């Protein structure tokens, strides 16, 4: 497979959660992911940014087939895996990994670090005991939990948050996956160690040519991780583009608002009020008609609440779901 080939192709992906099955009423759905399309190249890293509840985790987990999609398709290297059954998915589990937010809750407390890292190898019947031991040492070295002899026999409660997150990363990498989703991997860590962990992830991503989806609500950390930015709002990806272009010239009004809301440290901040839209993200059971951002959008036009905007590509490689960018 050449460098430029698509690894992952997602089309019109939907994941709805059924809220309650009323005996007489029709069921209600939380439309957590509602029509998402994008492509990811082999070895490409992207950041997926959106506020709490916008559907980032759901999208990540659906792509990894930890959730059953409600609609749309997921193709990996051209192969449709949208509705494969779990017994047909073993190879996919081996080639993908999820790194979760909470380093404290993600690791089993009764296993040593060595055992935690060996577990996925055992499950996927990787090599013999010696080969597994070698792989565990290799990944511990990669995440720089050294000296290895000190860390391997330890238990999770003996480690700091940053060290635990390294273990979680090592565990995700033991099987040498091609696609990794990291869901808020640093948001529970202190600022001083966040950058260290992000740098490490980036380094491993490049070294191992992993296709990587970094999920976060914190836009400021994304530019240290990827060149490409995906912005999610209310179950949809509303803007895709190069990091610097999006940050310096956002196309979607929601992206613009997001950028305006984020303070860099500057004493002048206390003198100003931030020009951000009022209101909060909509409820995903009954999202607003048309463009989901229209109740908060300062640029809203007549068409916005009537018709949902399709994807426009006003500049090469920049995609946006907003009527402002319709071809005139």
């Amino acid at each position: 497979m050449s460098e430029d080939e698509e690894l992952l192709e997602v089309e019109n992906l939907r994941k709805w959660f059924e809220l309650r099955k009323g005996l007489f009423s029709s069921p209600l759905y939380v439309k957590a992911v509602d029509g998402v399309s994008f492509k990811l190249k082999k070895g490409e890293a992207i950041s997926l940014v959106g506020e709490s509840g916008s559907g980032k985790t759901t999208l990540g987990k659906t792509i990894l087939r930890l959730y059953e999609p409600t609609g749309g398709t997921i193709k990996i290297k051209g192969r449709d895996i949208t509705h494969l059954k779990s017994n047909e998915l073993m190879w996919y589990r081996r080639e993908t990994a999820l790194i979760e937010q909470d380093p404290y809750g993600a690791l089993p407390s009764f296993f040593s670090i060595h055992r935690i890292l060996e577990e996925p190898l055992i499950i996927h019947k990787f090599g013999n005991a010696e080969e597994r031991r070698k792989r565990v040492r290799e990944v511990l070295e990669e995440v720089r939990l050294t000296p290895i002899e000190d860390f391997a026999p330890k238990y999770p409660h003996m480690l700091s948050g940053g060290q635990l997150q390294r273990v979680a990363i090592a565990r995700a990498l033991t099987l040498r996956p091609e696609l990794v989703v990291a869901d808020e991997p640093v948001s529970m860590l202190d600022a001083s160690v966040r950058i260290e962990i992000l740098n490490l992830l980036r380094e491993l991503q490049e070294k191992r040519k992993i296709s990587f989806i970094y999920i976060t609500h914190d836009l400021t950390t994304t530019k240290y991780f990827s060149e490409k930015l995906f912005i999610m709002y209310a179950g949809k990806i509303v803007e895709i583009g190069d990091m610097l272009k999006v940050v310096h010239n956002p196309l979607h009004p929601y992206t613009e608002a997001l950028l305006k809301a984020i303070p860099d440290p500057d004493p002048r901040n206390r003198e100003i009020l931030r020009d951000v839209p009022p209101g909060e993200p909509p409820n995903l059971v009954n999202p607003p008609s048309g463009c989901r951002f229209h109740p908060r959008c300062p640029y809203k036009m007549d068409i916005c609440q009537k018709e949902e905007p399709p994807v426009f590509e006003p500049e090469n490689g920049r995609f946006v779901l907003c009527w402002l960018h319709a071809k005139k």
Partner: protein
Amino acid sequence: MTDTILQSRNLKLYYATRKGVVKAVNNVSFDLQKGESLALVGESGCGKSSLAKAIIRLLPRNIATYTGEVLLEGQDIMKLSDTQFRRQIRWKRISMVFQGAMNSLNPVLKIGYQVAEPLLIHEELDKKEAKKRAVEALRIVGIHESFVERYPFELSGGMKQRTVIAMALVTNPDILILDEPTSALDVITQANIMNLLKKLKKEMQLSYIFITHDIGLSSELADKVAVMYAGEIQEVADADTFYAKPAHPYSQKLMASVPTLRTEKKPEFIPGAPPSLVNPPSGCKFHPRCPSAFDRCSKENPPVFDLGSGHLVKCWWYAK
């Protein structure tokens, strides 16, 4: 001229635990002026919330040490009995929005009642008067009167946060302590809440102690910044000085670790981890991680040096 409203002098709060004594707040001194907002920053576990609880005297049971002076307009409120403190100080003079408070609103009580509750309990107002004041407090934080009859689950995250701010303001305090008031909110809602806090400060002449681990956010409200590390305040500086040129090596490292959106600067991490507060390092608590440490640092705990106009630094580097 500004007046000092609150002064803390050698405040200590130690917890007794099975592992030993946790020195969460260790000899903390600072001044707060009327109408000023002091940002208290530092990594998690450095004692920020404990300092806040020590000031408002809402303490857990396992206290080993609770000493020092807290002067409210000159009066040492540490000398008051618990009853006096509850009757005269807490909520009436000093109020607080607790970390995570928006998620601990009582699910079975209406918003209006919860906002009025401090008045019913602490000021023994009659119901009608209390309700009137609750409606007013909610209006001030931007929540319409019609919400008085609603329950917490009917409110969005931002509205819940506004509600807990209203609860802290309904008693008309002079000082409001805000412990990570927006860390559970998304950034746009956070910006809206910060806008609200800025307006309230101006309109109500409030003094704030604003606790956050987010340096970017701290600059939204700070007139003055205090940096905490290992239970001690390491530096106090006015905002202009602090964000341009912090003096303490830890403050410098902390500032350098902040990722920014609009600048090209590459953030650095601070090697090592914050120390245990049971067995903190000898001498300067930061010495094991400090790039500028020298002999003296591991042997003697540095005193506070005054660099002029209220810029205080606890670091041997500034010894004459």
